[in-house]
């Protein structure tokens, strides 16, 4: 694919056009969400519109100056997703405030986090001129990931709803695991791009499968231990799946060996089996997935299926075109603004709206993979692949869980769920993918080939005898 010959165009103007369209979607959603429930054009309307508008135009300007050839559709897609998420969180706030006047609104804080996340992405774009610099931090990122993953287990950590994945920072809570997925992706990309050839060449061949050497399995064992550790000590099935899936994809992309995938699946099979036997919460999750509609499972106090079934009722209520923003009852679902936000959107925008949102995610991920195909360095390829895949896997786990395709696990919907750490991490991922796509699309800085052919070549049919002399 990287041999597509196109004229290098910066395409920032089309980005601006799409960005304005995305802002229209974001602000429009916010306006509709508040219609009939509050004064139109209230404080929140303006804070959402101004924050998104200013910050996204700021990033657009930075891209014009610093990364002229970055992919033009990534920024608009993400702004639209973030804006629709903010609108839905605000809409759920309004419902909650009608029931309970003392309810502390979530949306204003989420707007603040959006500003922080977009600002951090902008800073990353300015500071990090080239993603290849990150390769120097391969092993440092491993250590940072370990620290981030261990932080919730220290006294700083907080346990919320049985999962110990938060830490308390001065002004609120933070989920270090969200940042850890970036640092782990950097480590895997750095490690695999360095040791790829070794892993590829060594090892016994049995039938069509080339088995890896035992020592090359070490990083895979590390990834497996991390996932199992997260599952056991932090009781977070979603992150556990995410980390292991990330590693599996990156090693498959690096080596294109099916044996790795088989070994990985076998290891995860063992992990799932052990988890089912040992931990009641995993077993309950499975039970409330398979027997979701059984009354005793629905009513069970911890680990019941009420949440997912309410979400399904909401989706059914929405139907094809949805009830319209602000006209449904998505607030009946617990955690409608974080884990279940897709169910809320499905109820109010209907299948047509949710498919549009899924399409936006698909486009975003495909642009990430496209950047990976286009860039020339192995590290960048692996990093872009891994980071886009984390977004794809999160969407699959969340939307699959809500539609009862797979058991529901607590992962955030990228850019939409209420929660600052997830938003911050995903915006940083976007900044990294933008940088990688810039190196992928930027025309080569060297002089074009045709100017640098040696004169002695005799391009225009000079007598060749003299040329023969020169070789002696």
């Amino acid at each position, binding site marked *: *694919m990287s*041999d*597509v*010959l*196109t*004229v*290098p*165009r910066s*395409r920032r103007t*089309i980005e601006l*056009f*799409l960005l304005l*369209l*995305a802002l*229209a*979607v974001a602000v*429009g*959603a916010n306006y*509709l969400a508040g*219609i*009939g429930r509050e004064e139109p054009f209230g404080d929140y309307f303006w804070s959402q519109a101004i924050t998104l508008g200013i910050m996204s135009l700021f990033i657009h300007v930075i891209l014009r100056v610093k990364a002229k050839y970055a992919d*033009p*559709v990534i920024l*608009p*897609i993400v702004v*639209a997703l973030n804006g629709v998420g903010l609108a839905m969180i605000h809409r759920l706030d309004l419902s909650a405030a009608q029931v309970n006047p003392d309810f502390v609104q979530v949306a204003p804080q989420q707007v603040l986090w959006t500003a922080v996340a977009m600002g951090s992405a902008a800073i990353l774009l300015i500071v990090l001129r080239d993603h290849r610099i990150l390769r120097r931090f391969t092993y440092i990122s491993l250590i940072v990931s370990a620290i981030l993953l261990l932080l919730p287990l220290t006294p700083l950590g907080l346990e919320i709803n049985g999962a110990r994945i938060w830490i308390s920072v001065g002004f609120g809570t933070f989920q270090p695991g969200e940042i850890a997925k970036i640092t782990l992706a950097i480590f895997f990309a750095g490690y695999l791009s360095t040791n790829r050839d070794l892993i590829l060449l060594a090892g016994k061949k049995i039938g069509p499968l080339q088995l890896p050497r035992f020592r090359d399995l070490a990083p895979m064992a590390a990834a497996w231990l991390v996932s199992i550790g997260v599952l056991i000590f932090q009781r977070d099935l979603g992150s556990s799946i995410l980390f292991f899936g990330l590693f599996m994809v990156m090693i498959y992309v690096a080596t294109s060996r099916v044996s790795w995938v088989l070994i990985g699946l076998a290891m995860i099979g063992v992990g799932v089996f052990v988890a089912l036997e040992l931990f009641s919460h995993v077993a309950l999750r499975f039970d409330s997935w398979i027997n979701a509609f059984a009354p005793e499972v629905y009513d069970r106090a911890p680990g019941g299926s009420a949440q997912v079934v309410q979400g399904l009722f909401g989706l059914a209520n929405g139907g094809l*075109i*949805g009830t*319209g*923003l602000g*006209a449904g009852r998505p607030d009946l679902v617990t955690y409608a603004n974080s884990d279940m936000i897709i169910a809320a959107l499905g109820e109010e*925008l*209907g299948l*047509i*709206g949710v498919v*549009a*949102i899924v*399409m*936006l995610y698909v*486009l975003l991920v495909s*642009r990430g993979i*496209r950047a990976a195909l286009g860039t020339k360095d192995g590290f960048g390829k692996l990093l872009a692949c891994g980071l886009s895949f984390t977004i794809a896997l999160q969407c699959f786990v969340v939307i699959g869980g809500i539609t009862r395709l797979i058991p529901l696990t607590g992962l955030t919907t990228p850019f939409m769920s209420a929660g600052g750490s997830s938003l911050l991490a995903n915006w940083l991922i976007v900044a990294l993918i933008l940088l990688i796509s810039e190196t992928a699309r930027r*025309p080569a800085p060297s*002089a*074009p080939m*045709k*100017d640098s*052919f*040696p004169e*002695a*070549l*005799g*391009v*225009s*049919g000079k007598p*060749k005898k003299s*040329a*023969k002399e*020169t*070789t002696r």
Partner: protein
Amino acid sequence: MSEAGELTVTLLRFGFLILLWILVLSTVGALRRDLVVGRRNKVGTPTAREIRKNPELVEEPPPARAAAHRLVVTEGPLTGTTLDLAASPILLGRAQEATLVLEDDYASGRHARLFPQGSRWFIEDLGSTNGTYLAGAQLTRALPVEPGVPIRIGKTVIELRP
């Protein structure tokens, strides 16, 4: 809410769904250039303004020249060997899988590669120990080979002939 107000709200809600899909479809539209793989697409031809800004974008028509059809070894142990050139790349080296197996102590196993691109043949060194020389200059990257220009690998010299 009044009748007319409700109608407006309903229209606005439908309008939002349409707007969402306009965003999706215009994003896809912006990407259609990328959907063409492996060949130069029409959308990619530079405009006059782009040529003015980046003069290196101008494509010169390739100069008329005789295409190479044969490879001839002119020096070294295999002197006199000829090989007909087809459309497939040619591996030069001591390895048994090479297209032209060089019995030359100064050649590497997989020494160099000749490959066609467009109407020309290019030579590329495959990380050999002693290097590949095109018209006396050591190769650092793939370069086009014109018929009659000597390529030296160890003690062997080969030429393309029309």
